[in-house]
Structures are given as C-alpha cells and as structure tokens.
C-alpha cells in the first residue's frame, strides 16, 4: 500500500478517488513505567515510554486505516493526517485518516 501526507502521490497518477478511510486506536500505558517516567520530570529528558506509546498507537491506527483502504479496493492512501487526543488519563487515542485512491 502506497502512502503520502500530501494531495498527490509523487511518481504515480491518481485514477480514482474512493473516499475517506480511517483507523483509530486507544492505548494505555503500564502504570509502573508511568511512575518511572514521572521521575524524569525532576531533571528533564525524553519520556521514552510515552514516545513508544505514541509510535505504537500511530502504527496501529495506520495499519487499520490501510486495512480499510484495502477493503475498498484502493492501492494507495493520500493526504494522511494523524490526530492524537487524550480521552482519559493514561490513555491516548490516535486517529489516522486519509483518502483512499487508486493510482497507476
């Protein structure tokens, strides 16, 4: 499956637009790692467990979106956007959406 976050797909010609596809996931993080990472708030630094959470959630949402696009018979998704919201404490929702297209 081909992907891009712009309105075209460089190297290909879009022949058919199949509409919006989306995929989302809500992920929580282990509270133990949460407590450990809160220590970092003393002297700063990267919160790796949060970065991992964001990355894993984004990959999962993207996979689900691509799955939806595949079922529509698309071979590419263009103009992909991600939005991350915090719907509950310790949980993170990542929504991936884009336009499913057929390219050649």
């Amino acid at each position, binding site marked *: 499956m081909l992907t*891009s*976050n*712009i309105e075209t797909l460089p190297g290909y010609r879009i022949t058919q637009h199949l509409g919006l596809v989306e995929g989302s996931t809500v992920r929580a993080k282990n*509270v133990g790692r949460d407590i450990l*990472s809160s220590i970092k708030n003393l*002297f*700063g*630094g990267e919160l790796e467990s949060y970065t991992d959470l*964001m990355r894993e959630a984004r990959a999962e949402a993207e996979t689900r979106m691509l799955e939806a696009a595949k079922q529509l018979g698309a071979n590419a998704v263009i103009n992909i956007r991600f939005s991350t919201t915090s719907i509950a404490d310790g949980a993170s929702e990542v929504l991936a959406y884009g336009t499913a297209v057929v390219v050649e």
Partner: protein
Amino acid sequence: MSALLWDLIPFISIVLIAAITRMLLTRAHLLALARGEQRLQHIQLRNTQQYHGSGQGKLICAEVVLAVDAFSSLRWAIRSLIGGEAKALQKLTCRARREALLRLRREAQASGSKLVIGVRIEPARLNATFGRNQHRIALRVTGTAIKLAHS
C-alpha cells in the same frame, strides 16, 4: 539554627544533584542533536506540497515526548505571574522540535530518500495516570519521503 541547616541538607543535595543531572543531560542532548543534524544535513525537508520531479512518495512519521523538568516548571510558574516570554519552555519546545525533525530525517534516510516534502509538525495531547500535573511536550512530525528510482 544549625539544626535547621542540617535538616535542609538532604533537600539541598537532591536539588543540586537534579540540577547537575539536568545540565549534563541537556548538554548531551544538544550535542547529539548538533551531530545528528550535521550528519543528515543532505536530507532536505520542505513543507510544500508540490513536487514535479521523479521518484516515489512514501509517508514517514516521527514522534518525541520530552519531560518539562522541575526547574523549567518553576521558572514557568514565576513567569506566568509576571507575563512575558517563557524562555525555559521555549528552549524545551525547540529541543523537542529539533529532535523530532532529526528523527524524520533518519526515517527518510532509512527509506533511502534525500528529500521530504509536505512536512507537518503537530502537537499531541497526552495525559498521564500518575503525575498528571506534570508537564510534557509531545510532538509528531509527518512528511512524504521522495525516493528516487535509481537510488
């Protein structure tokens, strides 16, 4: 008086250790950023959408979450009373952005491209179960890496 001083010693030493750790970590991070940017400066980032050259596009992403340390939080607390630019936080957001863009460049390199178009930098909201009053800076950057057919 001296009893009070003795009571304060553990507190002061924790603050000192944290301050030194923070300084060393910040310095190490800035050094790593400068090195990484130097090494990957041949990969160009653009936030324009138009591309008329050859090559194949592919979506790439990178995330970063930085903790807002206690010292920056304190400076922010004081700054929010008197107003003006919060330099401590601004430095942190700058570091987070540089790190995220560096990771995007690494992703581009991993997929064999020298150009990323349509770069977007977006903030993300993250709440923690523990320490929900602590601040953190979360960013996601996305872009379309252009891979040239012959490379």
